[in-house]
C-alpha cells in the first residue's frame, strides 16, 4: 500500500535511466539524507558519533570497495585491510610532506595510491583464479603491513610506532569535534556511494558481472578481460584506500600499521557476506551488523552474567556466536541482509491487503 509503483510511468529516456525511478524511493532517500546530515549530528551524543556512526560509515565504504571486487567482479580477496593501510599512510605522508595540500585532495590522492598498489597486486588475478587467488591476496596483506612497519620513511622515522594523525583542515577550518568529523565522513561516503551505484549499474559494472559469472565467456564476447579485472582491483582499492585514510584520520586519530591486521580484513569480508554480495545497500547493512553485534552481545552478557564471568570467556563466546551467525547466514540467507530488505519491500507493496 505504501510502496507501489502503479501509476508511475517513465515517459522519457532520462526518467528511464534515473537512479531512483520510484517516487517512494526518492522520498525515502531524501528523508534519510536529511536525517543523516541535519538531524543526527545534533541529536546524537559524541559517543554515538565517534564510536558508532563514524566507524560505521567508514567501514561501510571499505565494505563497498570489497564488494566491488568480490560481489561484482567475483575476485575473492582477503587483503582489504592492507589497502586501507596504504590509504592511511599515503594520506599521512601527503599532508606531512606536501605543504598546504587540501585535505580532500590528500584523501583522493591516497585513494589513488591505494588503487595503484591494488593494480600491482591485482596483476596475478590475470593468471590465477578462485581459491588460489584468495590465498595469493594474503601476500598483499602481509607484505603491505610489513613494508609500512619496516621502512621508516613511511612513518617519518617515528620510533614509537604510533603516530598521531594530523588535524583535518578544510578551507582553513579545523574539523576537530566528532560532529564535524561526522560531516566530513558523511559527505565523502555519500559521494562515493553515489559513484559506486552508478558504476555498478552502468557498463563498467556489467563488465565486472560478466567476468564474475564466466570470465572465459566474457572474453569471448569481446570484453577486455585484463582491463576489466584490473579496473575492479583499482576501484576497489581506491575505496579501501579512502576508507583507510578516513579510518585513521576521523576514527582512530592515529596512523599505525598494527591497526590494519588480517582480522580487520576478515571482518570486512564478513560485512560483505552478511550484507549481501553484489549489492550497495548490503555493504552498509553488513558493516552496521558486524559493528553493532559485538557491542550488543557485550551489553547482553553484562546484563546476564554481570561480573561473575571472566572477560576472556565472554569474548570467546562472542567469537563463537559470530562464527555461528556467519555459517547460519550462508546456509539460510546466502544473499544477505540486502535480500531480506528486498523481500520486505516486496511485502510492503501489498500490505495490508492480501492481494
Amino acid at each position, binding site marked *: 500500500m505504501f510502496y507501489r509503483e502503479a501509476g508511475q510511468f517513465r515517459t522519457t529516456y532520462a526518467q528511464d535511466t534515473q537512479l531512483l525511478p520510484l517516487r517512494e524511493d526518492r522520498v525515502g532517500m531524501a528523508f534519510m539524507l536529511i536525517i543523516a546530515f541535519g538531524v543526527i549530528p545534533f541529536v546524537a551524543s559524541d559517543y554515538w558519533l565517534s564510536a558508532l556512526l563514524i566507524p560505521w560509515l567508514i567501514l561501510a565504504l571499505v565494505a563497498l570497495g570489497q564488494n566491488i571486487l568480490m560481489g561484482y567482479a567475483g575476485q575473492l580477496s582477503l587483503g582489504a585491510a592492507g589497502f586501507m593501510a596504504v590509504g592511511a599512510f599515503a594520506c599521512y605522508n601527503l599532508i606531512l610532506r606536501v605543504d598546504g595540500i587540501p585535505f580532500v585532495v590528500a584523501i583522493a590522492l591516497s585513494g589513488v595510491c591505494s588503487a595503484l598498489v591494488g593494480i600491482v597486486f591485482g596483476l596475478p588475478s590475470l593468471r590465477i583464479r578462485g581459491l588460489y587467488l584468495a590465498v595469493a591476496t594474503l601476500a598483499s596483506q602481509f607484505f603491505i603491513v610489513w613494508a609500512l612497519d619496516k621502512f621508516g620513511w613511511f612513518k617519518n622515522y617515528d620510533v614509537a610506532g604510533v603516530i598521531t594523525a594530523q588535524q583535518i583542515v578544510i578551507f582553513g577550518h579545523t574539523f576537530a569535534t566528532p560532529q564535524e568529523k561526522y560531516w566530513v565522513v558523511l559527505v565523502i561516503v555519500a559521494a562515493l556511494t553515489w559513484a559506486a551505484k552508478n558504476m555498478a549499474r552502468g557498463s563498467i559494472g556489467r563488465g565486472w558481472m560478466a567476468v564474475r559469472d564466466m570470465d572465459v565467456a566474457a572474453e569471448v564476447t569481446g570484453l577486455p578481460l585484463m582491463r576489466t579485472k584490473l579496473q575492479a582491483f583499482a576501484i576497489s582499492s581506491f575505496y579501501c584506500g579512502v576508507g583507510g585514510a578516513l579510518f585513521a584520520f576521523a576514527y582512530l586519530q592515529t596512523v599505525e600499521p598494527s591497526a590494519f591486521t588480517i582480522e580487520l580484513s576478515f571482518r570486512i569480508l564478513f560485512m560483505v557476506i552478511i550484507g549481501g554480495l553484489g549489492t550497495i545497500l548490503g555493504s552498509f547493512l553488513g558493516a552496521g551488523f558486524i559493528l553493532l553485534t559485538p557491542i550488543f552481545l557485550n551489553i547482553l552478557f553484562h546484563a546476564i552474567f554481570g561480573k561473575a564471568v571472566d572477560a576472556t570467556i565472554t569474548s*570467546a563466546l562472542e567469537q563463537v556466536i559470530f562464527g555461528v551467525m556467519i555459517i547460519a547466514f550462508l546456509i539460510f540467507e546466502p544473499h544477505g541482509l540486502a535480500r531480506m530488505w528486498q523481500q520486505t519491500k516486496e511485502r510492503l507493496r501489498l500490505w495490508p491487503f492480501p492481494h
Partner: protein
Amino acid sequence: MLDFQFFIEVLVGGLLSGLMYSLVALGFVLIYKASGVFNFAQGAMVFFAVLSFVGFMELGLPFWGALPVTVVLMVIVGMATERFVLRPLVNQNENTLLMATIGLAFVIEGVAQMVWGVDVRRLDLGIKDEPISWLADKTGVFVSQLDITAGVVAGVMVAALGLLFSRTKVGRGLRAVADDPAAALSIGIPLKHIWMLVWAAAGVVALVAGMLWGARSGVQFALVLLALKALPVLIIGGFTSVPGVIVAGLIVGGSEKLAEVYIGPSFGGGIEGWFPYMLAVLFLLIRPEGLFGEKIIRRV
C-alpha cells in the same frame, strides 16, 4: 667452511620446519581432495586439538590416556562439522564454502578458549628441542631432535595417506567422490560416510600437527596464525596433491629461512612473515594450479 656449515644449518632447519607446515597443509589437502572444500578452519582445528590434549593431561589423564580421548574428540568435531556446516551447503560454489569455514574457524577458536582458557601452555612430548649431539660433534651442524621427529612424522603421514588414497577401497571411493560427487553417488559410494571419514581423518592430522607445533612453540593462540603459513605451502604444492605438500613444504621452509638470514637483514628483518606468500604468487604465475595440482581446464 664455517659459512658453509651455517648455510647447511639454516637450510636443514628451514627444510624441517617446512615439513611442519606440510603437516598442517596435509589436513587441507585431505578435505579438498575429497569434498572440494577449502577448509580454512584447519588451523583452528590444529589449535583446538592440541589445546584439548594438553587440557586433558592437566585434568590428570596420562599421555596415552589423553591421546585416544583427544582423537575421539577430534573425530566428533570433524563429523559434526560435516553434518551441521557442510551438508546444508552442499552444491554451493567454493567461495561460499570457504567463507563458511572461516566462520567455522571462529567457532572452533572461540570454543577452545571458552573451555580451556587463554593461557599459554607447555607441551612436553619427551623429545627435546635441542641439537642432536653426535651429529653436532661429527659435522658441526646443529639440527634439533624435535625437527627431525617432525620431519619423520610428516613423511610417515604422507606415505600412509598416499597409500590410503591409491591402494585401498576407501581411498578409491574418496578419489571418485572428489572427481564427481554425483557420479560417485550413482554407483553406490556412500557419500556421507566418506565425507565424515575425511573430516575425522583431518581432525586426527590436525592433532598430530598440533602436538608437534605445541611442543615447539608452546600451546597458544598464535598456532592459528602459524597455520596460515600452511596456505602458501598448499598453493605451491597444489590443492589436490599429497606429495606436493611435502615438496612445497620443503621449498617454503628452506627458502623462507635462507631469505630471512641472507636477504632479511638488508630490509631490517621480519621478511619471513610475507616471503612464503610472495613465493607462492611467483610460483602460481608460472603454474596456476600449483606444482602437482590437477590441470585446470576451463570450458564455456
